[in-house]
């Protein structure tokens, strides 16, 4: 791992979906086994360039997520390396049994891309707003769950998974992410990135909440509270060592995620803490409610996915320390 932090956390010029497509095009050039599957969302995912370049290796099955997962499993049984995409809810809850049996139980080799995580589904509304996708996938043994925070991390993780074997769930923002890492950074799956050290409290964040956590840490610093900041981009297998070290060295933890706190990052961290080093924990995230329609900024406020809420939770957790 060699994560170089960006000097400024500003919106990236390249959308995440375009970085995804470019990365797969590069991989496909070198590896003839790379195949892409989609369920009628190739255009939404910005994958038309791949489709045009590699039509024989693109399987757009139409609106058949369950069939797609089975086909991906079958392709992998013949040595292909499938990347199968749909929106997060349809890539997980719609076809859980197919992922469970045809892919995971059968020990096959499939990368599942679930896009538009949580509130970023915005105008598609509650029906399309996955607060449960990582939780669903966490239930399946041996699945690796990744949530790349920006395009630099995305490219590195996609390239890594292409050379690995197993079932991967990659939770992917389609829009432009806020830059967290400099070009050339590399990451180790299963290892959290320490974005900032601190002694008073640790904020463990993933996805779009990483940027909020960075802002929160700055505000806290103005108040004299020095927070450690971890980007837990691998939800499973979770980095137990980093969590236990944070508990021992900072004595209080706040998690932050664009997902239901039940069976998401908050749950995963709570499990590690309670079994190893119980310290006060507060969880920023969706408090077990359904999503709703609206602009993303409204939704971030609505579900408390903000730097201000992280600051409040830090104050609360410090009182319990």
């Amino acid at each position, binding site marked *: 791992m060699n994560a170089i932090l960006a000097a400024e956390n500003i919106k990236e010029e390249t959308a995440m979906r375009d970085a995804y497509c470019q990365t797969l095009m590069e991989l496909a050039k070198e590896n003839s086994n790379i195949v892409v599957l989609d369920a009628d969302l190739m255009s939404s995912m910005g994958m038309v360039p791949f489709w045009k370049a590699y039509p024989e290796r693109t399987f757009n*099955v139409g609106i058949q997520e369950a*069939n797609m997962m*089975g086909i991906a499993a079958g392709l*992998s*049984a013949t040595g*292909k390396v499938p990347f199968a995409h749909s929106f997060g809810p349809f890539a997980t809850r719609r076809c859980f049994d197919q992922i469970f049996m045809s892919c995971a139980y059968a020990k096959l080799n499939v990368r599942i891309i679930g896009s538009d995580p949580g509130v970023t589904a915005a105008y598609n509304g509650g029906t399309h707003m996955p607060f449960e996708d990582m939780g669903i996938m966490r239930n399946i043994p041996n699945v690796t769950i990744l949530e790349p925070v920006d395009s630099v991390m995305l490219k590195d993780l996609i390239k890594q998974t292409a050379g690995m074997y197993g079932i991967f769930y990659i939770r992917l923002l389609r829009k432009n992410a806020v830059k967290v890492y400099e070009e050339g950074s590399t990451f180790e799956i299963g290892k959290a990135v320490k974005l900032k050290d601190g002694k008073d409290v640790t904020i463990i964040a993933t996805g779009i909440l990483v940027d909020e956590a960075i802002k929160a840490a700055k505000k806290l610093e103005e108040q004299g509270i020095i927070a450690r900041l971890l980007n837990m981009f691998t939800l499973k297998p979770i980095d137990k060592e980093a969590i236990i070290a944070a508990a021992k060295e900072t004595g209080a933890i706040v998690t932050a995620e664009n997902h239901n706190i039940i069976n998401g990052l908050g749950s995963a961290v709570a499990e590690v803490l309670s079994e190893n080093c119980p310290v006060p924990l507060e969880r920023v995230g969706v408090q077990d409610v359904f999503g709703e329609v609206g602009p993303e900024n409204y939704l971030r406020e609505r579900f408390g996915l903000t730097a201000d809420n992280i600051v409040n939770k830090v104050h609360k957790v410090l009182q319990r320390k």
Partner: protein
Amino acid sequence: MNENMRKELERFATRIRIETMKEFKELGFGHVGGAMSIVETLAVLYGAVMKVDPSSPRWEDRDWLVVSKGHAGPAVYATLALKGFFPMEELMTLNKPGTNLPSHCDRNKTPGIDMTTGSLGQGVSTAIGVALGNRLDKRDSYVYLIIGDGECDEGQVWEGALYAAHQKLDNLIAFVDDNKKQLDGYTKDVNDLGDIADKFRSFGWHAVRVDGADVEQIYNAIMAAKEVKGKPSVIVLDTVKGKGCSFAENAHSNHHMVVSPEQADMVIEELERKVVEL
């Protein structure tokens, strides 16, 4: 098909049935109905059609069999053991702790099982994936797929039917075991399937219906399907659930049933006589 070949395949089918019944006898229960109804198809596939190597079950250029109705596992295991994929004694371990022969087919446990199945409908999609992968690699091999008639209630079967035809997958040959019964009774009473062949035909498949207990009809249908280019094929098997086991054939509810040693012995004796006669 000449008389010798027909007799040989009928003997193989009868032996598969005997070994399957021995598995159920040892266990005392099992999915008798749906295992017995596909025995002739298994005999034709492994006896005369499929390109497989028992000493190298994952040989890249083999033909594949996806038994989407995974509960027919015991009949497939008997077939594979008789073909030499694993020792015959293993058949006596069906469903016992630590066995390599679980109720439903598992590609990671049993040599010769190509795909993990059990949750119905899913084998259709995985078979399509395998057929697409083989076609991409220009392998000259077929994927055979066995679907239950009751299984055709699953929407995933029809998702696959649509896409296999769209992909013009002529290296995929499916069978529907039309034994007319599902767990809760007759398919026509639970959720009427209508004409299964017609449904596949309307999805763009080459579809025929044959007597699923007649090895010659099955063989000829497969050979004809191999000549069909530009579309997948389905052979609807007119079968009897529990075929060849009178106690099971006569039982109204024979999807999963208790098998007494006496019932099993009676069937085995009868079938052994048949092998000799053949």
